């Protein structure tokens, strides 16, 4: 999968300001096809509706957190191939390992710039392109 500007993103965060930030950064990188969800549970509903190609999710959220969302995605046959980029404020080793174990495609620490995001996305696209 190349970095298609039409790639449909789902941005998951309970803080609407944060969703807006991520949406704006994605827009800066040329990705304008973005939908939002307020927590893992809502995200899952939207994902099950189909059509999404990339998930960018926060970790800490009420109802269903990002890690559970990731685990659920990986355990759902229809969704398990979706790239998932985890966003978190933490750069703790345990967190990174937990994300990797759960099958995250990448990991980005807040706050980040469009440049960092682009780099992370690039790596993921590259990897999925190979697969």
């Amino acid at each position, binding site marked *: 999968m190349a970095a298609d500007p039409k790639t449909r993103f789902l941005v998951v965060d*309970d*803080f*609407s*300001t*944060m969703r*807006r*930030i991520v949406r704006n950064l994605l827009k800066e990188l040329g990705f304008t096809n973005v939908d939002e969800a307020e927590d893992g549970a809502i995200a899952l509903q939207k994902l099950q509706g189909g059509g999404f190609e990339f998930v960018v999710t*926060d970790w*800490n*959220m*009420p109802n269903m957190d990002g890690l559970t969302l990731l685990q659920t995605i990986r355990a759902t046959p229809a969704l398990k191939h979706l790239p998932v980029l985890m966003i978190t*404020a933490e*750069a*703790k*080793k345990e967190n*990174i*390992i937990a994300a*990797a*174990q759960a099958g*995250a495609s*990448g*990991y980005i*620490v*807040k*706050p980040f710039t469009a440049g960092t995001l682009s780099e992370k996305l690039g*790596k993921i696209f590259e*990897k999925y392109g190979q697969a």
Partner: protein
Amino acid sequence: MSDFAGMEDLLQDFLQEAHDLLSDVDNKLVELEKTPEDTGLLNDIFRGFHTVKGGAGFLNASELVTLCHLTENLFDRLRNGELELTSELMDVIMDATRGVRDMFGELGQGVQPQPADAHIINALKAALSGEVVAAAPAPEPATVAAAHVGEPDWNQLQAAVNGEVVPAELVVKESAPAPASAPVGGVTPVPATPPSPFGRRTSDRPANKTAAQARRVEDRNRENTIRVDTSRLDQVLNLSGEIGLTKNRLTSLRADIIAGKNDSETLHALDQAVSQLDLLVSDLQNSVMKTRMQPIGRLFQKYPRIARDLARQLGKDVELVLAGEETEVDKTMIEDLADPLIHLIRNAVDHGVEMPEERAAVGKPTKSLVRLEARQEGDHIVLIIADDGKGMSAERIRAKAVEKGLISEEEANTLDERQSLSLILLPGFSTKTDISDVSGRGVGMDVVKTNIQKLNGSVEIRSEPGKGSVFLISLPLTLAILPVLLVLLGDQPFALPLSLVREILPIDQDKIQEVGGRHTLVVRGEVLPVISLAKLLGWPQNRKPEYGVFMQTAERSFILGVDSFAGRDDAVIKSLEDFRPKGVAGVTTLSNGQIVLILDMKELLSDMGQHGDSGLVVRHFDFA
């Protein structure tokens, strides 16, 4: 204007959202004091700080990030059971929350926050390192603000993890604070205020100016935007669409009628279209009004924390109970209610309820309850602030008011219990001789009265010695539409705000008595002065007033003498732009097109006061 060029929108969004979040955190903190082990609460509070931190990072507000990060870590350890919530720790947390709020204030003014008070940071760090559980080394607080941990190579890590082997040497090495990633947003470090011994808060006092000012500025910034449920906006859109359709129908009917077609069918259609328009327009007015309505809970949220802090400061045990948070109130009104409610709650906690020992001595539970309640009653919103404290004595209040020269002995004698209690709302009244730092300056209650009156509302006080006091605030649903009573002087109608009207009664000239040189009427035991509207307006008194309107403002009750009535109406107030005659609040148009002045009773009465003794005008009043 600011350190946030290009980010103003983002900043506004962040502040609004983060503010709500922090209010929520504040309330949960108060709850947490009661149930310190509640992991749900701990999680929510943790997440609150965490979320604020995340947003602050993008705004480069590094000081806010630091403060939130430390607090968040504290909660992380609390929820993991690595730390125990002591009351000292609670104080530290409360200070930190206040610090966060102050920083929001600074952000609201478009400047990067100054570092938090050193004592807060130190206290947090001490708490974090104080009782470290061996298994989990404390994260190094010193580097957190800028700490960007050197990230491991993701692919390698992932491969390692998926290979089910986590290499022992897989270490996320802590790099020195990386300047590149450290958000430094033009912050000028300012020497932190010296830590006071044991971190006693310097910012605790209500008199803390900078914080208060910051809050005010920020409030002003927030006034311009409003969050509206999209379904309500859709409704407005729908209705305006339908009105458009009805207008088209009317246009076509007009063409028919002008062309001479006026058979009964056409007229019937016209009648229908107009009726429909009538319905739609009132629906539209309602819907538009609803977009301005906000649940009052947003305002109430702040108060448990304020009550708690104050009670602690005074050594009292007080619980603030909220009710009716979902009651919806006009947005502008919510803003104007904030100050009066704070005063009333402070008053209840400070003067209303007793010290635990006093309560125990009279057999009351040591914990006092203060209830803050909102509910809608008809076209009014009623706010209730009730305490179960010692109550007030009408006798003592009257005596005090006379002593302070606020009223004369004679006036005092004509006051009933309810009127006497209202005296505490007068400027300069305060029954506590020793003025406390909190609410004993005799200015607060005056502010309450003025602010509520500005909203066309009224305040009523009830009290029972030994049992407690109740403050009842009654407010109109909205400021845009004012229910009025139309009274007549000769043929000229005038509009009076209906909120001030208690009842209408015929004036029986024989029943008029003279008390202290004033014409008065006794209504169910209450002695009320009779004031003629004609006299107030400076009109010639051609006939004796036949009817009286029993009116009540916060400071006085009286009977307004008028000739007759023309009914009630919902007035849409238009202000007179360039000139404003004294005593006129605005004008409105009646359904027949007649223009009517809406009277400002308070101003009219104060004008009367300027002629010297307020009884003077009435004394010359030519009744019999």
